[in-house]
């Protein structure tokens, strides 16, 4: 099944010319009135990538996507597709297709005609259109529904029609604007998997816009986090999660414990940060030297371990472990994991996420129980605020 599907012309065309990216965004900016929606974004996207633009609403990610589709013209900068500047080209002149947030299916056309719409505009022969439509309908598993109108379909089916319609022209670049936002959780998770599988099979380049960091993490090979019109960080999912560049990114992507730093002290090749809420914390050397500004120590909840007594192997500097004493203040059972909030004796609060690896809760902690929360220096990062 996987092999017999032809690789798309688009993918073949898009073979990188000596390392040239498929899409190059250069200093693109867009202002609405006095509001700078996109503020000097530069980004390269290689052919075959599944790229996610992640950010809170109003961060400019949708505006950036609309500029790629041609619905908005950038005020500054260039958008190069295969080396050609398309920044001012009209939407219908671009070899780029988009899957819209609420699908934007044509309500007066059947599933078949919706999928065929772009092919007819491309002046494809009637017989070829029929073949391609069948192929697309099969690809998104909508066989038998070709004659239905969009309002005779379920949400999930409509989402598939939208996908088939956007893929039918075999665009060099497929843009997906919050494509799964309207689906319920279970369907969303299944569809995520299908989208990834489809993208791999077709060898196409996808750019997805989403505000859901889990969705971005699951699907994308690379993520660009946007904040206030700027790209805050571009990284693979793991790097984004484990080595966020700023406190804001760390908080936006996943849960995190943050302790404001007050002093720093070099201790061999370890750095010791004095914090107000958690005392002195030993941390790994940050990748970029800390500047003069404020900074904080960040640790993900799942990296905080809990135990009734402190870890035995402390003392020595090389194996230094941060240990924080406290009492359980809140328990949140989530099925796969349980999140404990520990009120530290030093005044702060730390969250620990513990996998429920056994069905019987012999290891569970109870409210007000005294515990030690501990973590290694390598598990925490120091972030500029």
């Amino acid at each position, binding site marked *: 099944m996987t092999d017999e599907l032809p690789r798309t012309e688009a993918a073949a065309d898009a073979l990188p010319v000596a390392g040239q990216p498929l899409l190059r965004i250069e200093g693109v900016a867009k202002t609405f009135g006095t509001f700078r929606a996109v503020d000097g974004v530069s980004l390269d996207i290689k052919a075959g990538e599944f790229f996610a633009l992640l950010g809170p609403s109003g961060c400019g990610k949708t505006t950036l996507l609309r500029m790629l589709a041609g619905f908005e013209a950038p005020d500054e900068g260039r958008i190069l597709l295969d080396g050609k500047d398309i920044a001012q080209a009209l939407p*219908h002149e671009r070899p780029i297709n988009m899957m819209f947030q*609420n699908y934007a299916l044509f*309500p007066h056309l059947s599933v078949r005609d919706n999928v065929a719409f*772009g092919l007819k505009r491309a002046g494809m022969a009637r017989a070829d259109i029929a073949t391609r439509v069948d192929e697309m309908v099969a690809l998104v598993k909508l066989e038998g529904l070709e004659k239905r109108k969009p309002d005779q379909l379920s949400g999930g089916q409509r989402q598939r029609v939208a996908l088939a*319609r956007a893929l039918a022209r075999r665009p060099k670049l497929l843009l997906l604007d919050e494509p799964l936002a309207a689906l319920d959780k279970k369907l969303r998770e299944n569809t995520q998997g299908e989208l990834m599988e489809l993208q791999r099979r077709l060898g196409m380049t996808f750019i997805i816009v989403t505000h859901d960091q889990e969705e971005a993490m699951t699907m994308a090979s690379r993520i660009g986090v946007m904040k206030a019109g700027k790209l805050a960080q571009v990284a693979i999912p793991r790097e984004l999660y484990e080595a966020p560049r700023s406190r804001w990114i760390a908080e936006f992507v996943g849960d995190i414990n943050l302790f404001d730093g007050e002093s720093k002290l070099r201790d061999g090749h370890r750095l010791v940060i004095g914090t107000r809420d958690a005392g002195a914390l030993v941390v790994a050397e940050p990748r970029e030297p800390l500047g003069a500004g404020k900074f904080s120590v960040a640790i993900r909840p799942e990296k905080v371990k809990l135990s009734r007594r402190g870890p035995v192997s402390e003392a020595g500097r090389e194996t230094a472990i941060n240990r924080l004493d406290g009492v359980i203040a809140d328990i949140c059972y989530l099925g796969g994991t349980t999140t404990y909030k520990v009120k530290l004796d030093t005044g702060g609060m730390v969250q620990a996420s513990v996998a429920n690896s056994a069905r019987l809760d012999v290891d569970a902690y109870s409210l007000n129980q005294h515990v030690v929360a501990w973590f290694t220096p390598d598990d925490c990062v120091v972030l500029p605020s």
Partner: protein
Amino acid sequence: MSSRRIFARPARFAAIAPYVWMVLLFLVPFGFVLKISLSQTAIAQPPYEPVFDLTAGWEALKAAFAALSIDNFRLLGSDDLYVFAYVRSLTVALTATALLLLIGYPIAYGMARLPKRWQAVAMVLVIVPFWTSFLIRIYAWINILQHDGLLNQILLALHLVSQPVVWLSTDTAMYIGIVYSYLPFMILPLYATLAKMEPVLEEAASDLGAPPWQVFWLVTFPLSLPGVGAGVLLCFIPIVGEFVIPDLLAGSNSLMIGQTLWLEFFTNKDWPVASAAAIVLLVVLLVPLLLYERLQKRQLEQGR
């Protein structure tokens, strides 16, 4: 059970009300007109016979019924005057409706794409002419179109014509008057459908490779058809029966059916023929209404 009782009386009354309305204000008058159309003209009060006299007894009523005939309808079919009047009415109405659609659609489209707060302003601008009496507005047009009227003054001042153009008592003047008067009835239903339409559908079409004119023809226009239908009907039907505008602005050599009706009623005092003409007009106008109804039904069925 109890929930049913809550609704019983008032709901039933509310359901009947429109029918009562229809019977009192449409069917009963229609019955009168139909009866008169089957009568013969007479120099009497009322100016036709037979007259149904419910006090004269059963035999008299039967005789009156027997006296009814469809001669008036035969006359309508045999006399060119009436046939021409119908044809002219339909031609004028068709032409004017087409003009209205051509002029009204871009205006409605423009309004629907304005920022929200400007849409309200545009709406008021469309409706404002209604604040002045219709007749006064038509007389104003006479003023504008007359020999030394505003239009000719402007044309002369711009050296577009060397001598005043005759506008009044021409079909052009009549079309100007009709289009001017009926424009809001075309714009408002069009605006209502276009404003409801999601602009993202047009974006989707252009994203899929449709140049602007195809976006319009393949997406915008088909989706606005309900509004087009409503606007066309709201204009076409009253224009067919239009009397005042052609009477004041058009020439008198060819009459519309509304004018013919007026002549029959008030000049010839031939109520039966006038009534027959009115009945035929009603039947003619039922055709587009039924077509529209069928179209709507089909759309509803597709919608399910």
